């Protein structure tokens, strides 16, 4: 069984938001719904000594899932391959998971009355394709694959670079790993 994960190389991300739009189009989301925002931090500092970094955000596909635990209907699930997804037929739109998710990754769809989120493009991954945001990224800042496969790019990157997981202190154990600039270079 695969263990899907994503490495995001922030050294490469330029904040173009191609992934954001690709995801919206792929998932046919209403204009006000985004699974996959890119936040820009900066420029920080004082002109001309500045720094700027872009951090793409998405569902972290945690190993310990507060969202799944919060779901009263069993609509939210974590699959054996690590993908956290929502069975839309079972979702009643109670938003308990929205409250529970520490990453703000779950969004209530007003039109459908259900909660939705990134599922690593399950429909594509099941057919052996990569998620839409990964394919769309010119910069190759997103790398997707199977962590259990030591030859996968995602496993190689994770094993050779210092990576961080967002809000790791919560113990949620995300499957999304970030490479930051300087720390990575020093390693």
């Amino acid at each position, binding site marked *: 069984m695969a263990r899907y994960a994503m490495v995001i190389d922030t050294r490469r991300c330029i904040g173009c938001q*191609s992934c954001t739009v690709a995801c919206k189009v792929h998932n046919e989301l209403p204009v006000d719904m985004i699974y996959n925002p890119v936040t820009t931090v900066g420029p920080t500092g004082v002109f001309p000594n*500045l720094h*700027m970094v872009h951090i793409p955000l998405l569902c972290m596909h945690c190993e310990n899932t507060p969202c799944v635990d919060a779901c009263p209907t069993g609509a939210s699930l974590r699959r054996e391959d690590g993908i956290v997804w929502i069975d839309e037929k079972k979702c009643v739109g109670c938003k308990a998971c929205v409250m529970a998710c520490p990453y703000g990754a779950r969004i209530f769809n007003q039109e459908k009355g259900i909660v939705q989120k990134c599922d690593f493009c399950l429909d594509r991954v099941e057919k052996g394709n990569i998620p839409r945001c990964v394919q769309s990224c*010119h910069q190759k800042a997103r790398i997707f694959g199977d962590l259990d496969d030591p030859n996968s790019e995602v496993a190689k990157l994770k094993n050779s670079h210092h990576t961080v997981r967002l809000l790791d202190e919560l113990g949620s154990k995300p499957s999304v790993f970030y490479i930051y600039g300087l720390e990575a270079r020093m390693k």
Partner: protein
Amino acid sequence: MKRNFDFEQEGIQVKKSCCYFCHQNCGVLAYVKDDKVLAIEGDPDFPTNTGGLCCRGNIALLHLDHPDRINYPLKRIGKRGEGKWQRISWDQALDEIAAKLAQIREEYGAEAVATAGGTQRTDDWARRRFMNLFGSPNGFHNSHLCWIPTFMIETAVCGWSPFEIDLANSRCIVLWGQNPGASNMPEMHHLSELKQKNGLKIITIDPRFTETAAKSDLWLPLRPGSDLALALAWLHVIIYEGLYDPVFVENYCEGFGELANHVEQFTPEWAEPLTWLSADLIRESARMYAMNKPGNIQWGVAMDQQGRASGAAIHARILIRAITGNLDVPGSDLLTGPSLEFITDEEMEANEYLSEEQKAKQIGADKFKLLTWPGYSKIAEMSKKYWGKAPTAEWMCEAHPPSVFRAILTGDPYPVKALLVSATNPVNSYGESKLVLEALRAVDFMVTCEYWMTPTAALSDYVLPIAGALERPTITSSYGCSDFLLASQRAIKPMYERRNDYNFWRDLGIRLGQEDMWPWETVEDAYLHKLEPLGYGSDSYDEFVEYWRFHFPERQYQKYLDKGGFGTPSGKIELYSSVLKDLGYSPLPEYVGPVENEIDHPELAKEYPLVLSTGNGFMPFHHSEHFQIPDVRFLNSEPYFQINPETAEEYGIKEGDWVWIETQRGRMKQKADVTQAVAPRVIITQRGWWFPERKMEEPDLAGCLESNTNVLTSTRDEDCCPLSGTWANRGLLCKIYKVDSTEQKEDN
């Protein structure tokens, strides 16, 4: 690409198409069934984008059948700009337009018909072919702002513009006024890749802390418009610190002594107050480029957009490459010359059919000689002698756009009665928008080929529906000047009654007695003709795309060794340029300050104390496009300008405040982005803005002047570059003040 899309469903075809929302033409795979595009994705096998698409590329299907697209020929039935249209047939439109053009030619001469173009996203060799056969020299684009002055000045000095950068073998790249992080995704990808793999040094020269600056080894935030001073100071450092390549200079350059004498005065200390950069930083950056060889200086539009200082700045930049020997050697900037293997755009233009008498009438040719027939003829002749072919005349040899707009209004030097507009919205994309708008209102007869009802289209007599992304084949070849090409096919036939711009020019030409000159019924037929000499043996253009897709000749370095020198009159790189001298210009880059600056114009600077730069690109828009599409508009839904917190505080401006920005030409408003990304006293505005969600009626025309940065730019003859005629988007002086909350919408 929609969820659960079945790639393998019965009857589906995969077409090798391309994105058409900027010049990169990234490869796109289109999944087509029954002549409908069901899904698209970036083509992983395409050499530039390798599967990536930017946010614009991803919304191609929303663009394709957007409810606001123009789908049928329209004829104006109300007053101009009133928004009353009648749907007519293409035959009726073309018959009536042809009759009107014939009448104007009869009455005023062929030169009374001008054409305005936009970016290179049309088959404009066909436009030139039409105009040459019609007899008018007055075609133009706003390409003065985009590479064309660079190409022509570099060709004058070196015999060809070294625009092919051999990045894979490079150790250092200078991004001078370029921000590939927002404008050239494939390039940015390669830069990141090479930086990580090879330790490529990146120097970014830009007044803004851009996406690209943030990834660079060195960032030079110069005063907007001071590029010339910086380039001259770099020449000084490289020469007087002995960092130039003495062997290359000795053997392959002419005029080094004159250049060394000329730049002696331009010390980094001299440049410091002009560029707002420390002399140390100027030295450090010049050394980084000159000592990390081989290296590249990537072209960016910044130098093309500085008005009177543009020509000298471009000239100085090419000299930096030349004296460091960073020309045509592995890892440097390569002079490929035109393709000798396929038929170039120039060979499709029928330039020989335009009489000398008509060429002499080209508007602006008397003032700005390099990008008009006097300079182009000279360079074309030189190029033919050395390479065997000339650069494209469309783009490189055009009427001076601001002078044509003025001629419409004044009749000087002669009346211009008709304007054929294709793929441009001049109100928002040409300089001095108020003047342009007046000219568009005043011109007797106007036809616009468009996707949308733009402010310009709204003022037209006829609006014709044009095929866009996925509906048209495309050959990508750097304004027809590259020795390689990338070919893409249309995914589907044009929807509704849309047609290729090629067919507009052809069908119009046939009605005006040019039938013998248009043997290619479709643009694919014409493309196949262009490709035939390559010898791939394809029976159709589509077959070429499906089997070959592109043609890259083997890279040849140091061609000057075999060819016995460079393609200039002396056979050497002419640091002291005989071509420019013969045209009446200085053979060396002379210093001239930005169009408006505090040193030359202290009085003006009292009233307009801030320094303005306009026109840089930003995601997700391209020029004045894509404001209609909510799925990208949400990323940047309103116009913003950048201002440093220190200056904002001085003016009592807070983040998000609407602020008037005013120059001598007028004012427009944008919202404040208070950011450290720019220096105090610098204002940087976004380009292109109009508001398709508003009513497209006179006088507001969807707010086409309200937040339009080109209201601020200057196109006066004395502000234009004397060589190229390019106008001033950068290095201007402005003042700002908050929009009064009680103030109503600006009535323009």
